[in-house]
């Protein structure tokens, strides 16, 4: 490509320095032909690169593997840390004690996995596979929650939360009692007999003696000693538990008619739930507070996503 015209009258036998200077000055001059040719060459080069990138399966690739990766698979990284965790899990050995052959095998396994994941995305498995969808939802939720999880609420924020939800912070109640049953039909005679037994117990008569005198038997439902309220409620049923929980230690209930006879509850101990102080409830307050904050953040995130999404509901599903 010779685009430099020799000036009129120039001698071929000029000194080399003068010739070089002249060539330099000619290159600095505007030359439309040269400009067009260079522009065309640039366009061809650019189109070639773009075409290669567009039509080759591998797309744009880099020859440099970042230091945090052991491999790039279609430009998707396989992290060194994942590789080390994987090889240690597979071999049961610390990374430093693994052999090159073991390392090669694990790298190949991870490359295979990455290829299959990419293929799975091409086949759009997230649209249909429930496990994939669950994993994606969980990952997004975790990402949303990361800030909440890592931030330390102030003492004031926790105390305020505690004060606003005070009724939720109480110790567990537990109860220990005898449940005595006068089996048989529940009629006036049975109620009167049970009433007499209650009177005797309240007067301080020994339990064994009263049971023998009035033909009472332990129900066996609450004979394991102290029970948490939830367990006593399950064992006694809602109605009898409602009676028992209000009675203090040493108290005896009125006769309680039931399907299998008349029941009498004799309370050995009853530790009713007591409101906790902030200091006692601090751990639970902390976790509850974070849970609420996380829920707020997730709700805000969902609201944002909905606002950006194009969601159309079919008729009848509004």
């Amino acid at each position, binding site marked *: 490509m010779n685009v430099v015209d020799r000036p009129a009258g120039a001698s071929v036998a000029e000194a080399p320095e003068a010739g070089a200077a002249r060539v330099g000055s000619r290159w600095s001059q505007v030359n439309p032909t040269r400009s067009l040719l260079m522009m065309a060459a640039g366009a061809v080069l650019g189109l070639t690169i773009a075409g290669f990138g567009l039509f080759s399966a591998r797309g744009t690739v880099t020859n440099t593997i*970042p*230091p*945090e990766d052991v491999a790039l698979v279609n430009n998707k990284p396989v*992290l*060194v*840390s*994942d590789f*080390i*965790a994987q090889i*240690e899990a597979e071999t*049961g*050995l*610390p*990374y*430093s*004690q693994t052999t090159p052959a073991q390392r090669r095998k694990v790298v190949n396994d991870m490359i295979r996995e990455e290829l299959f994941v990419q293929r799975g995305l091409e086949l759009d498995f997230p649209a249909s596979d429930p496990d994939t969808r669950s*994993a994606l939802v*969980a*990952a997004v*939720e*975790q*990402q949303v*929650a*990361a800030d909440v*999880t*890592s*931030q*330390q609420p102030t003492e004031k924020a926790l105390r305020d939360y505690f004060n606003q939800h005070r009724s939720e912070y109480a110790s*567990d109640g*537990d109860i220990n009692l005898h449940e005595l049953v006068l089996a048989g039909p529940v009629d006036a005679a049975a109620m009167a007999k049970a009433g007499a037994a209650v009177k005797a117990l309240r007067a301080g008569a020994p339990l064994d003696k009263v049971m023998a005198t009035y033909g009472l038997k332990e129900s066996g439902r609450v004979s*394991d*000693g*102290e*029970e*948490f309220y*939830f*367990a006593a409620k*399950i064992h006694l049923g809602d109605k009898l538990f409602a009676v028992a929980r209000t009675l203090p230690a040493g108290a005896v209930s009125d006769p309680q008619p039931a399907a299998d006879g008349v029941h009498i509850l004799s309370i050995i101990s009853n530790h009713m739930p007591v409101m906790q102080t902030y200091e006692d409830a*601090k*751990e*639970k307050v*902390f*976790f509850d507070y974070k849970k609420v904050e996380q829920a707020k953040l997730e709700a805000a995130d969902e609201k944002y996503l909905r606002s950006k999404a194009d969601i159309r509901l079919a008729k009848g599903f509004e």
Partner: protein
Amino acid sequence: MIFGAILAALVLGGGLFLSLRTANLYSRLLRGDPDAIAEKPELARFAASVAKPVYDRRCASCHGADMKGDRSRGVPNLIDQDWLYGSGRPVEVERTILYGIRASLPRTWNLADMPAFGQANPYRRYKVAPLSPGQIKDVVEFVRVLERKPADPLMASRGGKIFADTGQCFDCHSTDGAGDSAIGAPNLVDDIWLYGDGSRQSVFNSIAHGHAGVCPAWSTVLKPGQVRALAIYISNLAKPGRSGTARATAASQQQGRPS
């Protein structure tokens, strides 16, 4: 004019040199065996310089500026040489930083929780029967025996049976109470407590109410170099003078593996 050009060249050259050096250090930090980095003082220093600000910004809010955690919330002490997961090797710490604990990611540590035996349905993963307050008190006494603390022998004897049978405590804490760092089950015999102070009431509360502490996953927030630096920094502070390689060797020997 010439002086200005030389100065500019020096500044640019210096900047370039520092950038290349930093890139080189990051590269060596990330490519090397994390367990062996403690033996390379230059890299360990570099890791600490990268990790400290990251720790202060991301971790100190829970683990504390002094890294001693908070037992009122079950946040582990990072420098007491006691590890809930693994043995404190950088590789293991790195995994925890990347994927967290019970952090809703597939690679997170999430194999077990402490059931709440004082509730009707103590465990979300599989069926475990609740315990009565008396049974929990028995188990508390048994735990005190494990720790070689004064305990009621009769209650401890009953508690031992619950520990090894109905309570299924052995399943995570192992039959000798030494725990299992593969699933994050605390050692019950070392008098190091994740929650509370080890008193009867505190152990009772743990058994009755259960625990499932969470550490966030940082894989989507921190850069790989920051995570690696943080892992090495924490691991080194936890056990100064003993490299991850030495710990890895000791751990594999303990498990009867070839080293």
